[in-house]
């Protein structure tokens, strides 16, 4: 399970816990930071702080689930795929997202979606993690 910083990271941990509870074995968890792989660098827009990519396992030949909280344009996932391929060649990569808000700018779709959400003009999706299994999803300006 590889969480995309920052929203995907706690979700990846939770999903790993769920799998452990269900199957008895917890998958390994890593994180990717896509800041250095973004396609909108140096546009002067607000930048996310640079975080670490930690993949403490051999990616080559492994089965990977990329995890993020919200899927929107698809550019973040595109960047995350590039990061993973700089570390090795996974057997397969699938995508799990909590929320799919549509609005894709690239041909990228999630394999597992928690909820599809419609978002109005000028609104964004905010995900909050409650304790244990609960998550809050709301749209607001």
């Amino acid at each position: 399970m590889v969480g995309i910083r920052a929203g995907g990271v706690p979700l990846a941990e939770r999903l790993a816990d769920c799998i452990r509870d269900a199957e008895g074995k917890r998958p390994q968890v890593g994180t990717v930071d896509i800041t250095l792989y973004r396609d909108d660098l140096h546009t002067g827009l607000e930048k996310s702080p640079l975080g670490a990519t930690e993949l403490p396992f051999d990616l080559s030949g492994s089965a990977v689930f990329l995890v993020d909280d919200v899927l929107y344009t698809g550019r973040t996932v595109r960047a995350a795929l590039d990061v993973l391929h700089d570390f090795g060649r996974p057997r397969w990569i699938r995508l799990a997202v909590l929320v799919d808000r549509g609005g894709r700018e690239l041909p990228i779709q999630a394999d597992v979606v928690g909820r599809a959400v419609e978002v109005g003009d000028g609104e964004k999706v905010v995900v909050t993690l409650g304790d244990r299994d609960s998550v809050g999803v709301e749209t607001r300006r």
Partner: protein
Amino acid sequence: MTGFARKDLLGLADLDADEIRHILDVADQFRDVNLRPIKKVPTLRGKSVVHLFLEPSTRTRTSFDIAAKRLSADTFSITGSSSSAKKGETLLDTARNLVAMHPDIIVVRHALAGGVRMLAEALPETSIVNAGDGACEHPTQGLLDLLTVRRRLGGFDGRTVTIVGDIKHSRVARSAIHGFSKLGAKVRVCGPKTLIPPGIESLGCESFDRLEPAVRGADVLMMLRIQQERIHLGGHYFPSIREYSRRYGVNRDKLKRWARRDVVIMHPGPINRGVELEPEVADGGWSVILDQVENGVAVRMAVLYLVLGGRRTAATEGRA
């Protein structure tokens, strides 16, 4: 100011503590890239970095070149020496020619202090990174020194850094004085009186002309290279290399008698083995000299990344 939002890096004197810390934090992340099997990220893909080195350098230029290439930038090197009478003119002419080739970043080393500042003002569309301007500043060296100490000691509060050597002619010393004092360390400079510029204390440091009191209690000893030419070329700053080494050189015996057990030894390189440092000290457990080199690439990657971002930020916010 949070983060770093400037189009140029000219000196540590210009930066506030938060900006310096931000560069160090970003450099820490780039250290990780340098440890991967594929030491490349696409961040500066399609960007051009020109190394304009009008004073000789191998290590600094190589370090900047590796940094730029690991960020996927294209690099070009212009080397040469600046002759005394025509320095300023040559620099501006050279720069104007360069601008016609649309570089994104020019990394400049020049023998005249302030040359980089002139370039930065004359070239508003290009990021200028100072790789050493005369005896004024060498900010990326200062930053890698800071990063090395931060990683080794955890921080700067309550720490004392002693710089030993030819302070008068050293841009490394000046950048270090600015950087370490802004981040909260106490700075001492030590050397023959002839090589300590009068008034250096106004930069925020204490000066010593004897090694022992400068070493006692210091957490970090930064040794500067003594240029052998200085004795012979019109200066006569000290009678002989042997005398300099006896009074200001560091060996295991002096460390045992005067220094903290966990003192950290630094040197910007290249080392004059046997002059400022005995080999046993340069290669011993106190030395972080090779860490400095490793951190240098990460720091330069951080700087190249940040000045490009800074240029865009400044442009969109209407600042030059």
